[in-house]
């Protein structure tokens, strides 16, 4: 199938943009998705924020505000959910036949893949901003002028961190052929990645260091709160390495995808 991948290196940027826009539109129009993401955020903020408010969290020798710890972790967690399930929207397109329309268009698979990835990454950025805003409203982040810079800085970080996760979603959904597997993915990929990342609860690094998502969470904390378990350059390297690897794997399986009649 990949031999039909026309103009392999050519990327049609206006097509990438319209595809990315489509992802954003579908998020915005599906009000239940917006509401559920906000509600979930509030729920996590209150439960984990309240639960750890009396716990003294020590990172790298210095104790940090447990509320800020939780809020930054939850903001990072958003990436995981949005990224994987956004990537799996490919499956929805396969089911409803829209994928065929895309496949037969005179644009490369790379364009299609890029459009979707960018769209989901932008959507993730949007959700991260929503989460941080909620955190500020409920007083989880101290508000000062530096927060503005931090939020601006967090956007590219969110974009970068979501690439790897979208890659996972794309890889799975291009190989998936039935709806039932969604539960499995929730149980075996999303949940372990979430709990073992230390996003919600402080865990010793001996446990979390094997989870690539940990480094994204850590990078988030470094930018938003100013403290991190690992040095920030290590976070950056692991996050971008993991991102590129999975995007390549995702692109591979996207190229190989066949649309059955």
């Amino acid at each position, binding site marked *: 199938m990949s031999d039909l991948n026309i103009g392999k290196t050519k990327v049609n940027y206006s097509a990438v943009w319209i595809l990315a826009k*489509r992802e954003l539109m579908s998020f915005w129009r599906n009000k239940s998705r917006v509401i559920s993401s906000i509600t979930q955020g509030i729920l996590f903020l209150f439960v984990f924020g309240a639960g750890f408010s009396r716990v003294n969290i020590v990172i790298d020798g210095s104790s940090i505000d447990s509320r800020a710890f939780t809020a930054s972790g939850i903001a990072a967690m958003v990436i995981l959910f949005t990224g994987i399930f956004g990537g799996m929207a490919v499956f929805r397109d396969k089911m409803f036949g829209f994928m065929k*329309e895309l496949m037969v268009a005179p644009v490369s698979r790379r364009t299609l893949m890029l459009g979707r990835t960018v769209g989901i990454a932008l959507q993730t950025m949007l959700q991260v901003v929503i989460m941080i805003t909620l955190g500020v409203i409920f007083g989880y982040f101290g508000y000062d002028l530096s927060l503005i810079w931090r939020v601006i800085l967090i956007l590219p970080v969110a974009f970068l961190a979501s690439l790897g996760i979208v890659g996972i979603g794309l890889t799975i959904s291009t190989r998936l052929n039935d709806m039932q597997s969604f539960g499995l993915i929730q149980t075996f990929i999303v949940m372990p990645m979430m709990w073992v990342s230390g996003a919600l609860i402080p865990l010793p690094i001996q446990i979390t260091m094997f989870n690539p998502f940990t480094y994204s969470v850590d990078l988030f904390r470094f930018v938003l709160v100013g403290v991190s378990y690992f040095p920030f350059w290590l976070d950056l390297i692991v996050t971008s390495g993991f991102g590129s690897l999975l995007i390549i794997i995702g692109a591979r399986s996207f190229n190989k995808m066949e*649309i059955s*009649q």
Partner: protein
Amino acid sequence: MSQNIIEVQNLTKIYDEGNVLAVDDISFNIKKGEIFALLGPNGAGKTTTISILATLLTSTNGEAYVNNYNVNKEPDKVRKSIGIVFQEPSLDGEMKGWENLELHAILYGMPKKERQAKIKEVLKLVDLDDRADAFVKNYSGGMKRRLEIARGLIHEPTVLFLDEPTLGLDPQTRRKIWEKIKELNKGNSKITILITTHYMEEADQLADRICIMDHGKIIAMDTSENLKKQLSGDVIDIQFENVEENFKIPGLIREIKGINGVKNVSFGTTEGEQNIMPNFQPPPGMPNIDPAMIQARIREILSDPKKLIIAWKRMPMAAGMFLNAPLAMKKKIANMFNDNLLEEVPDNIKKEILKIKKGEFEEEEEHLEPSISISCESGGKQLPLIIQKISENGLKIKTANMHQPTLEDVFLHYVGSTIREESSNHTKDIKKMIQMRQLRK
């Protein structure tokens, strides 16, 4: 080459999974401005053919050209030359009608100004301009189809592929879509259309030429008219009044066969040696037994009166079968029973047998009227000659019926047996499923 928009040479497609030979060495050409229909039952290879031409699949063997571009070597140029409407809907329901079209136009690299004008134009063409701002998920099936046709036309393709465009639509909507398709093929632009369908009347109504496919092969390819002519021209059925001169009929048939243009004459079969149940279908839920085996078993029972009695006693179905059997069959059975055996026969059947033995049904038998069926090249010319021959022989016509073979006749003539086979396999599958379910309980 310049005249042909599509050229297909020795195209073959084998699906690796399951080693399925979907398209088997087919060749055809489609001229510019033509509506060409691929007609065939499900699984004949129509959609595979269209998918190869649309560059969604690669061919295993053979060449195909669309708009003079090789589908395997220049897929991007082919893609820009074609518009395609898939068998299953391929719209994004979460987007508005207009947005679906816009996305398509951008993917096909149309500049903004041109895009806006063209989208308006195609929406008007399919009468959807007033619903363009509605979400596609709220469209009806027919509207979705029309929107897809509109979408296929935005980038001004030279060929439009329509894969089962009216599948699952009501007759009224279907007719509307046919009108739209015909409209596209009119005027200066005269777009070439390749359509696949398994609806006879769709191919008949729309297509300039029809290609009948089955099992991945082309079975026949011609205009609808020629295909029908190829089968048998006209069919004339004549039923005679019951007369003593029945013995004249064989002679008459010989004379009619002599008429110029008459292809074949067949003598209507009278009730004679006939199978008691030519179309025996076991009721649903019955164990999965080959109908042929059941028939063999029934033949065995029929030859032995003692077994028959047991069957009648045990199975009400067998008794019902006897009562509804043709008279000749009943007579044959009745003759097997002497007075001794008759004592054991259930009452209702006993009555029937006694009646037959007394000959009460003689009258009914006399009603069987001889009839002949004539197939000829042109019924209008040969019918008067045939009637002349009949009156010369002193026979009287009760009814005469002339009809043209429909495309359905043609289709069934070529692939009829396959359809039946497939459907019987299907019922077998259903029976198996029922069995499995019962086992699970």
